[in-house]
């Protein structure tokens, strides 16, 4: 760590990991509810658990991005953060708001929560991923703006590199597209249309910039490859991501009442979306193969490579699988979508945040890398979580194919719930894989507490 102020990233990362654990626990609860319908009923109904699961995911990833930004931007700008105090204040505001929101979901009926928090004034709630009450949404905007101010000032006064510019543009985009969550037209078609401007343009647009910048940052550090080479890659990757991702939004406009031409535009552009993800994989491996040093933090290198591969599989391959309109006609909103959503989120954003944590945490704790024992445990957690996620994806895909077949292709289509009964076996297997994922996550947390002689550069 070069600058004192980079240490504000630490509470962000710790909170991120804590919330990650919460997310997985609720995932497991839901996974069980899929097969044991009345599990925990009426204490935690499925819809509440689902909301908690997905919102925790988004919130902890945001914590991760923010922490990463507070670490990366000062280092790239070669100066201290503009205001570490502001960054720390924002951390607490975000954490308290996030916790209050989750507790609200769990202990207050959603309709009451909506009433209590002024949803009558400006109705924004009740839409997947954007369920947060109005005050929370406003809080997110304030926290984001304060962060952007803080980071922009740092960059303005310091060195400007491709990495910190891309990171900053990505974060600005994140904040700007979030504003569409305040727009909730009564017309359901329009509502959905703009809803995707948050959801899709986040994960297949501006978040890719954030991811690219984080990956490039860690790769420079652990491989020692020349900055020029890495920056060139970064530019090409983000250009491709934006060309394909922006109009690629059309792959959500096939059947929601939007004009038919979206079937063409969405199919063609989104079919090319795997390219930037593929390039990211090639990028990571290429840089590691050309490395000029052996960084003692082997675990971080492993996470970086894993990000490349898993993001390509989850977003690129599983995304392509159902992105062409004629295919999506059958798979829309089935377990295939869920399979893709899980692997893409894990492979791209979970893993890139962990890559960053894995690289920076030892530095913030005063060593270049963790002890070999701790790293071995961390690598075990890598393999357990990653393999478990591959299996979750495969089981959900199998369930999805069967579901499509029974419910949509067959000449005598089954009703939804009857088809669900037929695929219960896969849901059981998903739950088992989920438990293994939990074990991996716990090991990951344990790895932070393992002492031992620090590894040194070789």
């Amino acid at each position, binding site marked *: 760590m070069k600058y004192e102020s980079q240490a504000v990233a630490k509470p962000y990362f710790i909170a991120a990991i804590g919330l990650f654990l919460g997310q997985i626990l609720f995932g497991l609860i839901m996974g069980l509810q899929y097969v044991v319908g009345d599990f925990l009923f009426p204490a935690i109904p499925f819809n509440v658990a689902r909301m908690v699961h997905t919102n925790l995911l988004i919130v902890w990833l945001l914590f991760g991005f923010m922490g990463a930004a507070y670490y990366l931007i000062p280092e790239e700008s070669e100066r201290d953060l503009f205001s570490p105090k502001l960054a720390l204040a924002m951390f607490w505001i975000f954490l308290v708001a996030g916790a209050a929101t989750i507790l609200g979901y769990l202990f207050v009926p959603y309709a009451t929560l909506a009433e209590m928090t002024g949803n009558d004034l400006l109705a924004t709630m009740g839409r997947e991923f954007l369920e947060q009450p109005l005050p929370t949404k406003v809080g997110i905007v304030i926290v984001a703006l304060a962060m952007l101010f803080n980071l922009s000032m740092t960059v303005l006064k310091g060195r400007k590199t491709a990495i910190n510019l891309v990171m900053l543009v990505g974060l600005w985009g994140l904040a700007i597209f979030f504003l569409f969550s305040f727009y909730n037209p009564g017309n359901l078609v329009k509502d959905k249309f703009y809803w995707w401007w948050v959801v899709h343009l986040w994960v297949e647009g501006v978040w890719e910039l954030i991811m690219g910048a984080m990956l490039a940052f860690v790769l420079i550090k652990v491989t020692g490859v020349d900055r020029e080479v890495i920056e060139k890659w970064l530019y*090409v990757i983000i*250009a*491709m991501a934006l*060309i*394909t991702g922006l109009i690629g939004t059309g792959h959500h406009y096939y059947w929601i009442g939007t*004009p*038919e*031409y979206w079937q*063409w*535009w969405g199919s*063609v*552009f989104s*079919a*090319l979306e795997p*390219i930037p993800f593929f390039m990211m994989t090639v990028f990571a491996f290429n840089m590691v193969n050309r490395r000029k040093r052996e960084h003692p933090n082997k675990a971080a290198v492993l996470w970086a490579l894993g990000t490349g591969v898993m993001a390509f599989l989850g977003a690129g391959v599983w995304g392509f699988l159902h992105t062409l309109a004629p295919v999506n006609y059958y798979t829309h909103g089935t377990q295939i979508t869920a399979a893709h959503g899980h692997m893409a989120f894990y492979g791209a954003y979970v893993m890139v945040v962990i890559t960053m944590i894995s690289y920076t945490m030892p530095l913030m704790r005063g060593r270049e890398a963790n002890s070999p024992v701790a790293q071995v445990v961390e690598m075990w957690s890598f393999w357990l979580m990653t393999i478990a996620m591959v299996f979750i994806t495969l089981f959900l895909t199998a369930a999805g194919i069967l579901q499509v077949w029974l419910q949509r292709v067959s000449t005598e289509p089954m009703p939804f719930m009857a088809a669900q009964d037929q695929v219960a076996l896969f849901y059981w297997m998903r739950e088992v894989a989920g438990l293994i994922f939990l074990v991996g996550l716990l090991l990951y947390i344990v790895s932070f507490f393992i002492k031992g002689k620090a590894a040194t550069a070789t």
Partner: protein
Amino acid sequence: MWFFILAELLVFGVFFLAYAFARMRNVELFNASQLELDRISGAINTILLISGSYFVVRAVDQIRHDRSRACAHWLIAAMACGGTFLILKLVEFGAKFEAGINMSTNTFFMFYLGLGFFHFMHVILGMVILGAVALKAWKGGYSASNYGGVETGAAYWHMVDLVWIVLFPLIYILN
């Protein structure tokens, strides 16, 4: 830059083929709708883009001989071609909208307007790139030993031209 150009060619290529295969399933509609296009405007636009490309070639030639100002002049001439192209295209599209035709009219017009608009945006981007190169050339930013930037900008512009060279016969002529 070459990577970028290839990516663009890929996008256009996929769209051209989408057009061709969509047409296979609906030949009458495509042929009938095509008759409503303004072929003359399309042909003039082709000449404009070809000439723009030619001017860009001349610009690169000038900078090889270390003539910065002349290079900038040729680039500006190319941009003028691009600008005229844009105006003609707007007139053409305007006439179609006037006639009540839009992207939802039928598949043929979806492609005609959609591809045309997408290419239109590329002409604008190409002009912006040429403009930046011209400005730098004017200020003496390039020389006979250092003109990579001019060549790169030129390559992008030729790509925009190349795409139109395929687009014009495909959408305006062949039936």
